[in-house]
């Protein structure tokens, strides 16, 4: 990283005013969120593998190096623990680092820094040191990725006290939640569903959606609540659409935040429909769905007409591209699972 005390590129940027609505991919929305945050707050810095001139392997940081320069956007050496560890030191000194783990499975070398320091620093220092770091992790599959490029690692992070774990499912949330994550004084694991990077929406930036910590009912229904997040929101919505043919009214919840979990919104929906299933790509055993099912059961047992189901990836490593269609939960598989309930 080179310092340019007097030659910062900030002068070339403008404060983000409301811009006319335009179709935008999730990747572009994330890019805009980082850019706007960097314009608003000079303490925001960005680094990671290939995030500089290349703009990241998914182009999420496209153009930022050119706009902000080496001082604020830089390619780091290729070492994930090093990226997180140095981000911690920068945050102690007052910067707000936004760092990228190139792919889900390549965040594992940084596990110790994230779990032992990022998550614990505020607590172990009795609130004296805070680490406003955003760790962006492209995750999940359905992109025909080779081995180690399609993991869903959310349960590791979500079960770690001290971390905030969020995942947008659409471009508007991508922008809004990333702005909120960067502004947060808590460290945030920001999980980006790779298969949704190229999904498009009409956005008038700077768009603001519901608070990052809340779940949202994205489709109302009366018979079943499908609880999804990130890549499976699309699957759940498709399932709900298909179910109308069978006269089944499905409510779909986009969790958005995995930690914290929005008990109020989800429990209200489950009490209304009395049936719920949680859908994720990650393996089932010890997965995030287990927590969802357990806490909803504890809180709403007497409102339930059926056990809460988990429709998830199998308990196997993520398969090769030609086999991933068998692994991923599909609307058919979800409907079949709902059909195993006794319907009276």
């Amino acid at each position, binding site marked *: 990283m080179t310092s340019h005390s007097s030659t910062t590129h900030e002068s070339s940027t403008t404060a983000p005013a409301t811009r006319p609505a335009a179709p935008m991919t999730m990747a572009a929305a994330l890019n805009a969120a980082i850019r706007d945050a960097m314009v608003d707050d000079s303490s925001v810095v960005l680094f990671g593998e290939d995030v500089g001139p290349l703009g990241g392997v998914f182009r999420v940081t496209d153009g930022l190096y050119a706009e902000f320069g080496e001082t*604020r956007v830089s390619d780091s050496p290729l070492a994930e623990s*090093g990226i997180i*560890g140095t981000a911690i030191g920068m945050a102690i000194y007052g910067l707000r680092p936004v760092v990228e783990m190139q792919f889900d499975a390549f965040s594992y070398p940084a596990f*110790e820094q994230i779990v032992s320091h990022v998550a614990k620093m*505020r607590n172990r220092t009795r609130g004296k*040191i805070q680490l406003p770091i955003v760790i962006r992790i492209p995750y999940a599959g359905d992109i025909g990725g080779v081995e180690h490029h399609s993991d869903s690692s959310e349960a590791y992070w979500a079960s770690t006290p001290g971390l905030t774990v969020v995942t947008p499912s659409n471009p508007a949330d991508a922008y809004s939640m990333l702005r909120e994550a960067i502004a947060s004084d808590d460290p945030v694991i920001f999980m980006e569903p790779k298969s949704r990077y190229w999904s498009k929406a009409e956005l008038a930036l700077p768009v603001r959606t519901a608070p990052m910590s809340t779940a949202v009912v994205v489709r109302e229904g009366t018979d079943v609540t499908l609880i999804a997040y990130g890549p499976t929101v699309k699957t759940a919505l498709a399932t709900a659409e298909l179910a109308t043919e069978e006269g089944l009214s499905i409510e779909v919840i986009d969790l958005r935040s995995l930690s914290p979990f929005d008990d109020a919104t989800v429990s209200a929906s489950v009490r209304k429909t009395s049936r719920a299933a949680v859908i994720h790509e990650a393996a089932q055993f010890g997965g995030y769905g287990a927590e969802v099912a357990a806490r909803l059961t504890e809180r709403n047992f007497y409102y339930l007409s059926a056990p809460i189901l988990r429709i998830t990836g199998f308990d196997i490593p993520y398969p090769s591209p030609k086999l991933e269609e068998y692994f991923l939960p599909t609307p058919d598989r979800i409907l079949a699972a709902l059909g195993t309930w006794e319907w009276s």
Partner: protein
Amino acid sequence: MPHDYVMSLNVESAPVLTQAAPTPLRLIDDAGRAVDPSEAGGFALPAPDILLGLYRRMVVARRFDVQVTALTRQGRLATYPSALGQEACEIAAVASLRTDDWLFPTYRDSIALLTRGVPPEDILASFRGEWHSGYDYYQHKIAPQATPLATQALHAVGLATASKLKGDHTVALTLLGDGATSEGDAHEAFNFAAVWQAPVVFLVQNNQFAISVPLDKQMACRTIADKAIGYGMPGYFVDGNDVAAMYAVVSAAVDTARNGGGPSLIEGLTYRMEAHTNSDDPTRYRDSSDVEVWRGRDPIERLEKYLVSVGVLTDGERAGITREAEELAAATRECMTKTAVIDPLELFEHVYATPRTALAEQRDFLANEIAEHEAAAAKTTGETA
């Protein structure tokens, strides 16, 4: 810098791996004599008043260390990793820094905290088991003592880089153990620092053991300092029991970092005189005769001989230093009599900046449970009375 113990990127002076380990740089020898300037690697012996100051701080630090070890043996502290015998490294590190520089210490380095001004009760908070860490980081510019090995080295590199990005002149110094240099984070830190030319100093205290494991089971190269060349930064192999040499080299490295010259790796060759912690049993893995050899190389005695020989350490000085050390020991014992009561509900306070409903519920649950227990206890006391 043609000396064997000063590695640089200069190809002519690059180390040859088949060479025997060099002797470490020293400015004052075991017998307390200043070495010939021709053997001083271009480093000047610090002035007598500086050496006297280092001596005073080493004596005071040792008194603290011995006191805390005693308290631990009495079972009054959960644990304490002693730095007995490593005072030259610890004190040289702190003395080389300005107040606005940052120190990134490990569990081993409590006397460095003490020397930088952290009150004994704040140092002992973690060892007493009150909270995981207990001092004012921003006041003292000291990061929390790190236990996950070598992780703090990356934090130091990050902070130093942030200082550079902001155009400040803050330097970061991190302390590492010899065993910790085997960790991936140590290598990542060395490499990031060199690539980013971060104003950071890595000071490895080679006390020759990682708990029970000797250095030859950690690495196959001559010295830890040799590794620096692989990353593109200078490495210095220094007698870690010679505070004069340690101070001269660390200060030079800190100056280099401050002036834009990038990172340095310094290895101080020393010895861990005590057990790893109170729960360790060193008789299972090392000979007490080795320990005795190193007792003969004591860093404080060595400097004392020198200072007496040049007439700087008078009886009056000595008495003053002893008094200061004893006062500190008394204050340390005294702080143990005060029991810090931490409200268990504070457990929920510092996990997140943003309040969470679930944590508030758990805090209320614990509060209720405590209240019920207290009510039950009061009732029992009432009945027996």
